[in-house]
């Protein structure tokens, strides 16, 4: 709390000491205040007027800011202003906010406000009139993080950055940031992460394989909660995380974002920098260089440190682009390096030890644990490389064509605790993916009151994976996949309809080594029609073909209240089994079980629907969403009885282990989310909250599915400091997260009953200092401030140790933007 007081004092000391005391009511304009301000808000580069832009004016002689909105042409007029200097902040979704000072004088003062688009440039011919959102699935429920909210998550891993969203939980592998987002109960294989339009390709099947994605590259992170299969492919059956970096500047300028973060638990910090340069002498060209690095010690629970959970990560990237009205192109390269320790407490060696660790409230030997920077075995070391080239070609009235090629190489090494004579990794994975996509956005067709816009696309990708270990786990494979899709949107002023269809194919060849092949063949898990002996081992070749379709609508039911929207979507999506579901044969990473796949598994098909009601007004946002899906042949990991010397279990050199097999079952997923954000009009208080529920059932047994997040509630109360001439968006917040005990869990699948419910107290304070060219952001966040001991149902750590105790995170960032063209800003 002391640090928050410092932030508060800092904020107050920067306030204007001579500011007049705030009047209780908006004063009537003083006599003689008769200046009219006329402004146009346009998109930088295209010059198109931006409708429905929110403007906040701090005019001379007014104690409270004036709110205004632009009309359909992007124009706004405010009368009755006093002469003097006025500060204006303009905001439109999908655009960077604009700030400027206006000298009001005479009878009318005109301004033109240019806002930079946060989405790539589009031809005016392919955009539905007055629909500037580029969201790929406008009819499905989605939630975005951008601006100050995103800035408050800098320095965290992707899953932690998203964990504040309703309906998004975290599947935590180990401590130290190895976690993955869980969207409406779906994780890993059923979620897709898309970075700047490129599907992220990593070893996403393992519970402790966190996505190798740097959230710092994103200027906006959007979570599509629900199937996005027609646009993104079969893997997007559960949800999609879209990370969009800020487009390169389109106007000659130097733009930079520099940030630092320090945290107390785990103790550590990092820094990041991004510099964009668009030279004035080569209009249209721009280059970006970015990088960040962070390092932290082991996490500390309320009563002991989680030994060996330190991590070190760095990222670097560059891209070069050219943009014009007719043609854009860009090339880029990014690399991620991450080394993370796995908690000493998390040794899964034998079922007996595992049972004992579950029964203990504290890991054995915890008195020897230390919170240090050193990263020892067990650990993971990862390189992830991404190179890409993209182009957009305007086809005039015919629309525009986009092309994208990417290459990713994911190099993962896992080191176990072994005898000292062994130096290398115990598991090595190398995943190489080439992907290409071409899509054609056809020109808008005007059908009376309706606009028809749409995209037809085709994708192709080729992937190879090499796995090296002395144990069997997954085979090497190579696969080629392709897809064609079409998404059409009929847009009316109050109704939008979306129709999408996709057809895709995948051809996978898995090379099983001798022991793997013979073992799986003896277990009857290889399909004799697709698998054959080859060399010492065997080869399994199989093709899959699937179709997905969506039908959605967005309706604004009340003409006078366009803030009120109703979205609904029906979809049927198909997912092709992943490599581990088909061929896993070994000790499942992270659990003392043997996991086996089946090459006979077919496509998993879901039939689902969702509906969202949203009111997004000036001072209130309320959203309620419900979803349900029936999944035919849902691939589930179920225990399988054995018939050996060890009874139902399989005898291994580490004791008898249970065997789990990937088995198709029919499943039901359903649930809902509620969220609201209220900022009391004319009062400096705000209240925000969210709740999410997920229910999932195995329809054959009627039992709940395992590892489904428990009911989750979040409530925050905020006090907003009044803006001053130098600072804005100052707030102080107290919040609580309440997670219920998961009462719906299968008795025979899990190793321990779900942990008890818990409530965590958090707090935050932040402020921005802004000028026309610079923006400084300062925030302080406190987590688990009561130092509560707790365990989470969707965390692997729950079997071994508590989650992190209290911590503070301090962030400071500077954004600046220096135009290099001679054009004066008005």
């Amino acid at each position, binding site marked *: 709390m002391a640090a928050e007081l410092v932030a508060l004092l800092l904020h107050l000391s920067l306030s204007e000491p001579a500011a007049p005391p705030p009047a209780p009511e908006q004063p009537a304009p003083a006599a003689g205040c008769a200046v009219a301000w006329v402004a146009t808000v346009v998109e930088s580069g295209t010059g198109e007027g931006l409708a429905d832009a929110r403007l906040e004016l701090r005019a001379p002689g007014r104690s409270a800011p004036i709110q205004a909105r632009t009309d359909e042409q992007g124009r706004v007029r405010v009368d009755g202003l006093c002469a003097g200097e006025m500060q204006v902040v303009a905001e439109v979704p999908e655009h960077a906010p604009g700030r400027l000072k206006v000298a009001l004088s005479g009878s009318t003062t005109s301004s033109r406000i240019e806002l930079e688009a946060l989405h790539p440039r589009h031809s005016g011919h392919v955009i539905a009139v007055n629909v500037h959102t580029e969201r790929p699935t406008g009819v499905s429920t989605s939630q975005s993080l951008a601006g100050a909210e995103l800035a408050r998550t800098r320095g965290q891993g992707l899953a932690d950055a998203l964990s504040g969203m309703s309906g998004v939980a975290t599947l935590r592998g180990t401590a130290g940031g190895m976690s993955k987002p869980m969207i409406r109960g779906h994780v890993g294989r059923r979620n897709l992460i898309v970075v700047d339009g490129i599907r992220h390709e990593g070893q996403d099947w393992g519970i402790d394989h966190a996505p190798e994605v740097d959230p710092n590259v994103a200027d906006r992170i959007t979570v599509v909660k629900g199937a996005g299969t027609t646009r993104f492919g079969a893997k997007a059956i559960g949800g999609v995380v879209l990370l969009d970096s800020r487009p390169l500047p389109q106007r000659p300028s130097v733009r930079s974002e520099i940030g630092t973060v320090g945290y107390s638990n785990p103790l550590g910090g990092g820094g990041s920098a991004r510099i964009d340069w668009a*030279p004035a*002498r*080569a209009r249209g*060209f721009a280059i970006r260089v970015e990088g960040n690095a962070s390092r932290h010690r082991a996490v500390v629970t309320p009563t002991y440190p989680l*030994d060996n959970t330190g991590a070190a990560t760095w990222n670097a990237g*560059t891209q070069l682009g*050219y943009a014009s009205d007719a043609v854009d192109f860009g*090339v*880029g*390269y990014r690399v991620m390096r991450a080394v993370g320790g796995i908690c*000493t407490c998390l040794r899964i*060696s*034998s079922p*007996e030890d595992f049972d*004992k*660790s579950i029964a203990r409230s504290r890991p*054995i030997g915890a008195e*020897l644990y*230390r919170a240090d920077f050193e990263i020892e075995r067990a650990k993971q070391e990862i*390189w992830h*490389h991404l*190179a890409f080239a993209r182009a957009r070609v305007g086809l005039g009235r015919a629309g525009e064509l986009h092309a994208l090629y990417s*290459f990713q*190489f994911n190099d993962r090494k896992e080191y176990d605790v*072994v*005898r000292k*004579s*062994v130096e*290398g*990794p*115990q598991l*090595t994975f*190398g995943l*190489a993916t080439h992907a290409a996509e071409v899509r054609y956005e056809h020109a808008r067709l005007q059908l009376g009151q309706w606009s028809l816009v749409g995209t037809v696309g085709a994708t192709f990708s080729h992937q190879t994976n*090499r796995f*090296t*270990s*002395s*144990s*069997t786990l997954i085979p090497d494979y190579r696969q080629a996949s392709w897809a064609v899709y079409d998404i059409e949107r009929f847009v009316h002023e109050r109704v939008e309809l979306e129709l999408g269809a996709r057809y895709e194919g995948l051809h996978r060849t898995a090379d099983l*080594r001798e*022991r*793997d092949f013979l*073992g*799986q063949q003896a*277990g009857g898990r290889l399909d004799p029609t697709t698998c054959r002996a080859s060399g010492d081992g065997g080869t399994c070749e199989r093709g899959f073909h699937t179709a997905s379709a969506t039908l959605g609508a967005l309706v604004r039911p009340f003409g006078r209240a366009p803030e009120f929207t109703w979205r609904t979507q029906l979809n049927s999506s198909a997912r092709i089994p992943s490599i581990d579901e088909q061929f896993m*044969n*070994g000790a499942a990473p992270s659990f003392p079980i*043997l996991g*086996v796949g089946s090459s006979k598994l077919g496509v998993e098909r879901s039939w689902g629907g969702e509906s969202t009601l949203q009111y997004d007004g000036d001072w209130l946002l309320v959203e309620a969403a419900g979803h349900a899906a029936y999944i035919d042949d849902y691939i589930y990991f179920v225990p399988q009885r054995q018939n*050996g*010397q060890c009874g139902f*279990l*399989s*005898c*291994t*050199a*580490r*004791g008898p282990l249970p*065997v789990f097999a990937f088995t198709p079952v029919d499943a039901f997923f359903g649930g809902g989310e509620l969220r609201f954000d209220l900022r009391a009009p004319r009062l400096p208080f705000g209240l925000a909250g969210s709740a999410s529920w997920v229910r999932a059932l195995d329809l054959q047994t009627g039992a709940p599915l395992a590892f489904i997040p428990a009911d989750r509630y979040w409530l925050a109360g905020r006090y907003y400091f009044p803006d001053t001439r130098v600072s804005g968006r100052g707030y102080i917040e107290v919040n609580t997260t309440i997670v219920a005990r998961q009462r719906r869990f299968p008795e025979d699948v899990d190793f321990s009953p779900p942990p008890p419910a818990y409530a965590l107290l958090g707090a935050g304070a932040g402020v921005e200092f802004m000028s026309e060219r610079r923006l400084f952001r300062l925030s302080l966040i406190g987590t688990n401030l009561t130092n509560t001991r707790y365990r989470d149902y969707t965390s692997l750590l729950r079997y071994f140790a508590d989650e992190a105790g209290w911590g503070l995170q301090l962030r400071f960032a500077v954004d600046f933007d220096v135009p290099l063209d001679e054009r004066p800003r008005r």
Partner: protein
Amino acid sequence: MQRHCKKIFGGAALVAALVAAACEEHGHDGDHDHDHENEVISRVELTFTPTAGGAPLVFAFDDPDGDGGASGTADRVELAAGVEYTLAVRFQNSLVQPPEDLTGEIEAEAEDHMVFVVGDVAGPGSSAPTTLVTHAYADVESDYGANAVGEDLPVGLVNTITGNAAGTGELRVILRHLPEVNGQPQKTGELAADLAAGRDLPGSVDADVSFVLAVS
């Protein structure tokens, strides 16, 4: 304009070079198990040699597919009552050709390892009500190298087993790996007594195999 194009193509070439270098650096060399190091224990071999002389008796647990889905099998250990045996325990990786003996590595790190013999056994690690055999450690860390840390504790690669009463029960052999944590040894003199008393042990299990024990 031309100058800028040169810059751009220079940049593109740099990206391409970086990618190529990255792929080279992390590419595989075609030899699948070349840089892979592991020490999977798939076979535990118990050799009982009568101290009074006689042919050694060898019994093994073997899991020829390692952590693959097929179950391993254990031989039936048949001993004679009233006979004292020297029990040598060996750990092997039979998943590679030729099979690799890991016992030497355990000997080299004797201070980080301990073998426990439990089941229907009377001995330091067991408090079983029925005791078909009696177990005693017959080695210490200094037998395998200098005893650098702490007491000179037993290792359990060599043991003395004496057949007591005739009957059938269980013989269980556990190898625990007890590497130092933050420079502090985890292997202490109380571990066997802790196990006998049902208390949890530190470290992790490298091997835990059970045999049917028949003493006649």
